[in-house]
């Protein structure tokens, strides 16, 4: 059996049990066993002489009920207990600090921090996924723009080819005024294109 009780501690704990309510000897023994999860099982040979000694010190008294001695605390006993209230508290702390309790505490702490971590990282992962998706969409838009622009560019170069062909085949039949007018159309188209392209550069992010 481990050294559960420090010197004088059993005496104090007996007073505490009898302060709660009057009890007979056997009840005291089984309560001691219960409170300490079976880790300390005091024998009748330990407890009864202690009760007798406490009685002779005037801290405990008994009356006989149904053939059994029922012990209770005297006023002096209650004063003795009150004087040692701090030691009693530290005794109860020691008793619960068994290996099993210690492990239970560790388990609770680790489980809590693991649960907190999981929910924190789950949230963070959700946010990162959202950002990545948003980026993907922006890239998709950029890719769309590129496609439209290359389609427009190939339309344009086709148009230029047609104009050039028309100009070559009809040049001798067309008056200087009409050539000047056609040149003017092309010049205006070029200026307009330049304007559209440069404004798009400024406008898009």
């Amino acid at each position, binding site marked *: 059996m481990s050294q559960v009780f420090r010197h004088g501690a059993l005496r104090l704990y007996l007073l505490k049990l009898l302060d709660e309510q009057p009890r007979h000897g056997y009840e005291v023994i089984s309560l001691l066993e219960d409170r300490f999860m*079976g880790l300390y099982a005091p024998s009748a040979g330990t407890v009864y002489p202690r009760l007798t000694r406490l009685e002779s010190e005037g801290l405990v008294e008994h009356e006989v009920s149904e053939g059994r001695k029922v012990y209770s605390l005297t006023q002096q006993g209650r004063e003795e207990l009150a004087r040692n209230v701090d030691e009693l508290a530290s005794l109860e702390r020691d008793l619960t600090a*068994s290996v*099993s309790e210690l492990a239970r505490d560790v388990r609770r702490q*680790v*489980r809590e921090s693991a649960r907190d*971590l999981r929910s924190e990282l789950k949230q*963070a992962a959700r946010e990162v*996924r959202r*950002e990545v998706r948003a980026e993907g969409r922006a890239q998709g838009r950029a890719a769309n723009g590129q496609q439209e622009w290359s389609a427009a560019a190939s339309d344009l170069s086709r148009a230029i080819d047609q104009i050039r062909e028309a100009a070559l085949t009809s040049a001798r039949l067309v008056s200087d005024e009409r050539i000047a007018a056609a040149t003017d159309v092309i010049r205006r188209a070029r200026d307009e294109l330049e304007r559209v392209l440069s404004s798009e550069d400024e406008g898009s992010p």
Partner: protein
Amino acid sequence: MSEWTVRERTVLEIAEPVRSVEVRVVSGRVDLVPGDSEGAHLEVTEIDGPPLRVTVDNGRLTVAHEDLDWSSVLGFRLRSRERRRAVVSIAVPASCDASVGVVTADAVVAGIEGDVRVRCVSGDVTLDGAVGSVHVQTVSGDVELRDVTGAIALNTVSGELTIVDGRPPSVQAKSVSGDVTLDLRPSGTVEVDVTTVSGDLTVRVPATTGLDVDVVSTSGEVASAFDGVELSKRPGVHRMSGRLGDGTGRLRGRSVSGRVALLASGQP
């Protein structure tokens, strides 16, 4: 060799020096914590069913049901209506190596500095402050590790694997459907290799970590908080790859449908 048979709630003080400990229990709970003597302090606070045999042989402490051996733990079947429960708490010298085999029991191993192995079917496994190598296998039990500085190998079918505040030189984790969550603060170079089928993989490392990253999921989304990691997506291959910092560590991951997220900690 010393030997005890435990049939009821008991406390045993074992004076003989203990250098390694092995515990095999069916259901209930097993706790291992560091003690302050070179021997062991054993508390059996609940026991129901056949007795536990406790032996110390040449520095090896064993607490076990005799018919439950290490290799049969994962396949152990309790006969119907058979009751076999024990809550066993042991304090051993911190330097001990430890093996814990449990079927449905939970296991807690705290502050043990030797190598730790845990095998378990459906119980939950909790490890705190391990310094030596850690090897945990479960079927459906969750595994939670905190403050571990030794090399880590975890294997589960459907349990969740979580590492809190890990500083291991290496992590190997395999899971079928359980999620894998790793929060690492490596003190040096770290090698991480994770495989899942449908479990999500979430890894957080400090923004300054040197890592060579290559993680692929067949159909799960991949996302990274690091600019140095490139994401690519083709049918059947969602990949993140790249170098973080000096790229000395390694992060490898494979998943079929699990989502993958690489997160940064310690950002200002």
